[in-house]
């Protein structure tokens, strides 16, 4: 199975789209020196275009195809109604600079989503602007920096990050001009408290902590960690990538986090899109709220004309300055309501992107939260933890489980099989593909040898979990009896294992015409 490159379907003069004729007089074009000579884009018919992309789509595996237990990615089912909601023309055909009064619906949705996220996390303020988790992290570290500097404290230059952290944490730290210091994990998979104490001091701006961490474990000393960091004058940043274990279970702000990002594309069911768009809203406590990026949406109570629904202020203006408007008349003509507007937080670090964030993604997350409600969200987190522990309890009999305790929404096995020493985690993953499953996350976190990081999510049924566990058990058998099956895997895919070394050594990053 292979599909030609779209340029190979091209023939000069073809176009898959009909456009209107020019209905105004032509104007003189700019001088030729400002114009381009050629434009090498494909020229294809609509039917060939559609077949091309449908054929490509069939070479992809998505959550709608099967279980996608990719650790730390929360590949839960993406409800279809969310897609319809985000495509309502009253949401898609809205320009971000339209007058405030013509976008009250968008602003209301954003305001309510900010409120929902505050309620779930315990934070006092939320900015929806950050585009993804990594951008949320950069935002958070820049906020820490702004906070310390606003207090005249310029000596803090270090961010502490556990060795189990996502790679984005150290990268975000460097981008913000801070230096990172790595903390060791202890034998139970917690942050090593002694190592933390050894590194705390007045040069520490704060700590970035993913909790549950990337081993899927809730740190047993969390309250002690947040206390120690605060005592040293540092701030706690929460990487919310694993918030799917915590909805209705605990509020990060109550646990001592000062700032945290949410991944709407993980916890709140918005699809990953083959690598985005995501959304990484950031929440903060009162002390840090003013530093959030923006604009964010604020609401103020005001009067609305009961008949037209317009803001009374505007109606009154239009009617002119007339005598005799008193409160009594307003009471009969008006109802109270909320007016929404955009506002930059007082001491904002500035904007981290254009406009207000990924509105289309927000609509999907909003729809999800409204359909589940508080109880449903809690049930989702509970079931995510149930599913992970169920799989862990079966699979730890077959694969080494380095941190053997009750996990949260994910767990990490070692991809090693006794009696099959030549087998690596990658071989196991690739063989899973032949069984119809997407592989777990491989080789991460770095503190586990041959890591297989498994996050089933709450939307997989027991039947699917059983089939997945059976596949991994059978693969362990195959590894001992016929390891070649694993080395050759996958065999049922459009392509076999790809030569990544060749790709990197001699990069071919675009298609070029032969000759």
């Amino acid at each position, binding site marked *: 199975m292979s599909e030609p490159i779209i340029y190979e379907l091209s023939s000069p003069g073809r*176009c*898959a789209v009909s*456009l209107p004729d020019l209905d105004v007089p032509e*104007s003189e*074009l700019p001088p030729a020196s*400002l114009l*381009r000579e050629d434009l090498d*884009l494909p020229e294809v018919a*609509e039917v060939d275009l559609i077949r091309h992309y449908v054929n490509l789509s069939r070479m992809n595996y*998505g959550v*709608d*195809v099967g279980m996608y237990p990719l650790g730390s990615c929360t590949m839960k089912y*993406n409800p279809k109604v969310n*897609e319809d909601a985000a*495509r*309502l*023309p009253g949401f898609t055909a*809205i320009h971000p*600079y339209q007058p405030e*009064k013509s*976008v009250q619906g968008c602003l*209301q949705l954003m305001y309510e989503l900010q409120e929902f996220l505050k*309620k779930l996390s*315990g934070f006092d303020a939320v900015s929806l602007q950050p*585009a993804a988790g*990594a951008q949320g992290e950069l935002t958070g570290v*820049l906020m820490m920096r702004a906070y310390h500097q606003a207090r005249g404290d310029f000596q803090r230059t270090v961010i502490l990050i556990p060795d189990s952290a996502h790679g*984005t944490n*150290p990268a975000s730290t460097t981008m*913000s*001009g801070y230096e990172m210091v790595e903390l060791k994990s202890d034998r139970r998979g917690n942050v090593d408290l002694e190592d933390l104490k050894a590194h705390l001091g007045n040069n520490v701006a704060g700590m970035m902590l993913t909790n549950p961490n990337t081993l899927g*474990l809730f740190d*047993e000393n969390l309250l002690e960690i947040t206390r120690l960091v605060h005592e040293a004058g540092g701030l706690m940043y929460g990487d919310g990538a694993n918030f799917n274990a915590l*909805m209705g279970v605990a509020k990060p702000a109550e646990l001592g986090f000062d700032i945290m990002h949410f991944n709407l594309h993980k916890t709140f069911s918005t699809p990953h*899109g*083959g*690598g*985005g*768009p995501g959304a990484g809203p950031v929440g903060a406590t009162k002390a840090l709220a003013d530093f959030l*990026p923006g604009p964010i949406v604020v609401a103020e109570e005001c009067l609305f004309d009961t008949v037209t629904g317009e803001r009374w202020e505007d109606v009154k203006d239009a009617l002119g300055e007339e005598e005799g408007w008193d409160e009594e008349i307003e009471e009969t003509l008006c109802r109270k309501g909320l007016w929404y507007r955009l506002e930059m937080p007082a001491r904002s*670090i*500035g904007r981290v992107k254009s406009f207000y964030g990924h509105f289309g*993604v927000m609509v999907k997350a909003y*729809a999800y939260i409204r*359909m*589940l409600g508080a109880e449903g969200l809690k049930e989702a987190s*509970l079931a995510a933890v*149930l599913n992970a*522990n*169920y799989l862990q309890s079966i699979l730890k009999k077959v694969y080494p489980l380095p941190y053997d305790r*009750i996990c949260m929404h994910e767990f990490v096995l070692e991809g090693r099989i006794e009696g099959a020493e030549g087998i690596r985690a990658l071989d196991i993953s690739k063989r899973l593909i032949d069984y119809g499953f997407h592989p777990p996350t491989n080789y991460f976190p770095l503190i586990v040898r041959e890591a297989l990081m498994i996050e089933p999510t709450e939307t997989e*049924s027991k039947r699917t979990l059983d089939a997945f566990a059976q596949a991994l058990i059978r693969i362990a058998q195959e590894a001992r009896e016929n390891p070649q099956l694993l080395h050759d895997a996958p065999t049922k*895919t459009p*392509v076999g294992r*790809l030569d990544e070394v060749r*790709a*990197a050594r001699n990069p071919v*990053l*675009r*298609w070029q015409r032969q000759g």
Partner: protein
Amino acid sequence: MTYVPHTEAERKEMLAQIGVQQIEDLFQTVPEAYRFPHIELPKPLSELELMAELREMSEENTDLQHAACFLGAGAYYHFVPSVVNHVISRSEFYTAYTPYQPEVSQGTLQSIFEYQTMICALTGMDVSNASHYDGATAMAEAVIMSLSVARGRRKKVVMSPTIHPEYRETVRTYTRGMGVTIVGDESLSNDLGALANMVDDETACLIVQNPDFLGRILDLKGLADIVHAHRALFVVCCDPISLGMLRPPGGYDADIAIGEGQSLGNPLSFGGPYLGFFACKKEYVHRTAGRLVGQTVDVRGNIGYVLTLSTREQHIRRERATSNICTNQGLNALAAAVYLAALGKCGLSKVARLCYHKAHHAARLIARLDRYEVRLAEPFFKEFVVRCPMPVEELNATLLDDYGIIGGFDLGRVYPDMANHMLLCVTEMNTAQEIEALVEALEEIAA
């Protein structure tokens, strides 16, 4: 609705397998004082109620299917062919993760490879990455790459004042901790000559936008030579639709071409999600941020695609990565690729020319009105500046309330010297009748 498929019996079996009595027993490590807090959220809705509520909320907005739009300024109302939405609605595309497992991700990978190819063709550059969050962050990443190319030895960035103001703000936020000095955008009087003079041996890059934020097409020939004489990089931010007719950044020797890709098949959606495109000369490929897809072969000798040069990226290089970017705008980039392939060579050129001629027609008609002034002297693409006889906010309110027209961008909001100046945008979506209606409305409002 929770989308959790378990029955009560299944839950019990699972708990028994784990060896606990009840599901709450799995949460012993969560500090008891904070465990299972009360969360106050509105009552859950059924799917039917949800859609009714959202439809009502969305109808509180004035959408552009019900108003003529002359607003641009970085987000544009362009035609999106039906094929785009049909392709990106294939759930094999939209429910997939980043293609870390290439054998089951060839669809995503090949479509990004094709996207990279088309962005290179459009911009005239050698290499394109798989996308950034938007035009603003693509610009910030271009600045960071320029600093990295200079190995941290150059800390000055020269930025044109007619770059989108929000992009300039974003660059400032991103570089807050990098000890960078940004000059050039203090005053609108800093023209290309003045900016070129600011480039020196401390400069990492010069950034200009073309067409600029005021819609003008700039003649950038020769500027690269000045920048390169100081061994700095030349970064150009451009409107991809304009590249249907205008000379691309590669044609005047830019080192990095970036821009907002929303116009390529993505709806306005109140500001996002969009995509930033990012392309550069091949000698800088190892310093780029973001994902790159490369061609290779599999064990059977078939052509296939993989994410490549990942040693630049955060998941491998951690604190030494070129950027922290992980998730980008995969599905928006797919939409852009489908758009470019559907329109193709002739289609994109036609869209660009429709915008150009309609904008010029509108500008000429408005220039004839009393009390309005249009700068027609310099070449422009689809946007132009109109000096109005009253505050733009006031004018826009009347346009919307009395004529159902979304007016232009209030330049006074971002340039103190430009109070009462409006940036109008005309695209292929605006019919001759809409343009006439706008002109008449402007005339009546000023009368």
